[in-house]
């Protein structure tokens, strides 16, 4: 945890123009300690956290939205979690929890360093706690906003509560749920930079933490910090765009309204209107 060091006060930090020099150096990208390796770790930390958060938040959000009970709890919990300072919680868990975890396993491709798991778990806990509120509140709000007529129709068709959730409420709430997942992903990507405070862990935050200690270094100092930060922002942008693409495919066209359902009149041969049909579905 020596990474939490204070910076020397100085105005001799390298200019921002050094950042493009740093980013254009191929050696900073490839290699065993390059940006690509850190980028991969960053993505892994993010995916693990968001997947766990979805597994936890989605069922709770659906249940609360469906039954209408515990809405106050969901709002309070989400707001409470938002108030927790992520940095403080990471420091706290790494100091308190990590020594109590005696797992020395390595997970090939994810946790390569022996002994890294006890530090990865606390960091993931913090990231999961961060990712839960947007997914939880959006799932709840999405289910609440389902057109009561659609719900009544499903009940009238004899659907059970579970079928109603799976076949009506979940698909109808999906646009909002996806936007919750998107904001979770953005927050986790931005916050996963603090993973580098824990020993043996990396991610793009490594450059920022290490750079802060040698901020005046024209190569590894300030330029590397800002450069890695730009890579984080780029990663967030790519993730956002990919998820928007995913959303296009998972959300039913009838709900997203992507295909125009222009009504065309059906006329009988004598010209009288006999009905309308939906075109372009």
């Amino acid at each position, binding site marked *: *945890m020596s990474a*939490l060091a*204070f*910076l020397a*006060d*100085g*105005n001799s*930090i390298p*200019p*921002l123009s050094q950042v493009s020099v740093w980013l254009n150096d191929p050696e900073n990208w490839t290699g065993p300690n390059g940006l690509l390796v850190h980028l991969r770790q960053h993505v892994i930390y993010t995916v693990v956290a968001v997947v766990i958060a979805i597994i936890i938040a989605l069922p709770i959000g659906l249940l609360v939205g469906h039954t209408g009970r515990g809405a106050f709890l969901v709002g309070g919990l989400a*707001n*409470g979690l*938002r*108030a*927790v*300072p*992520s*940095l*403080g*919680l990471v*420091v*706290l868990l*790494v*100091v*308190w929890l990590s020594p109590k975890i005696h797992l020395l396993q390595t997970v090939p491709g994810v946790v390569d360093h022996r002994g890294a798991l006890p530090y990865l778990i606390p960091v993931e806990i913090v990231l999961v706690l961060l990712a839960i509120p947007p997914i939880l509140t959006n799932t709840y709000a999405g289910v609440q906003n389902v057109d009561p007529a659609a719900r009544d129709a499903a009940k009238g068709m004899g659907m059970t509560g579970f079928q109603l959730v799976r076949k009506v409420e979940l698909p109808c709430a999906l646009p909002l749920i996806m936007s919750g997942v998107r904001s979770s992903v*953005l927050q986790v*990507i*931005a*916050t996963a*930079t*603090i993973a580098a*405070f824990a020993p043996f862990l990396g991610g793009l*935050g490594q450059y*920022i*933490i290490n750079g*802060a200690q040698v*901020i005046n270094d024209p190569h590894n100092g*300030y330029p590397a*910090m*800002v450069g*890695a*930060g*730009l890579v*984080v*922002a780029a990663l*967030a*942008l790519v993730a*956002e765009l990919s998820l928007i693409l995913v959303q296009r495919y998972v959300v039913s066209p009838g709900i997203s309204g992507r295909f125009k359902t222009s009504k065309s009149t059906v006329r009988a041969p004598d010209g009288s209107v006999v009905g309308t049909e939906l075109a372009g579905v």
Partner: protein
Amino acid sequence: MSELWQYFRDNQSDIAQWTWTTVWLAGGSLVAGLIVALPLGWVASRYKWSYPPFVTLAGLIYTIPSLVLFVTMPGLLGTKVLDPVNILVALTAYTVALLVRVVADGLASVSNDTLAAAAAMGYTGRQRLFAVQFPISIPVIGAGLRVAAVSNVSLISVASLVGVQQLGALFVRGSQGVTLVPIVLGVIIIMLLAFAFDAVILLGIRLMTPWQRAVRAR
């Protein structure tokens, strides 16, 4: 518990100083962010073509990690690394990013019937904006402000990594020593502060929207 209290008493003046810094950084960035976001949000709601670029740009700002924004500020503003102004400007940027969309959506959510009624009563465009549209969207804007306040307060602690002294300094102390006490204390104070900000804004919303209670009482 007694250890926490003991630590609090022993470091009272430091903690008071740090709390004050945290309060003015969070409060200042909220006020500045709101002042900037209101006209921007109005433009985004008034001129439909400007909504997508505004909201996308705001979303982009939100993707920048706070630590990165904090360290980029000296390069952009020409300030010193330890200058708290860096934190204030960075948090203001986050607040604006969050609120532009909220303000635009809030103003757009005012029903057309209401606007038509105001126009029929003889309100000019500007009177209608300030006397009808803004007040009606206070609950929506206020909800966005609450989220911004809570996240700002907890984001500030990250600034201790760039050496600006505020409540996050307790985390640094805890990580350097062997004791958990300052870390726990820091988390508790920051959360209490976040809830205090939340409560103040909630109270403000209530006071500024008396008609909501009147409707509920009926």
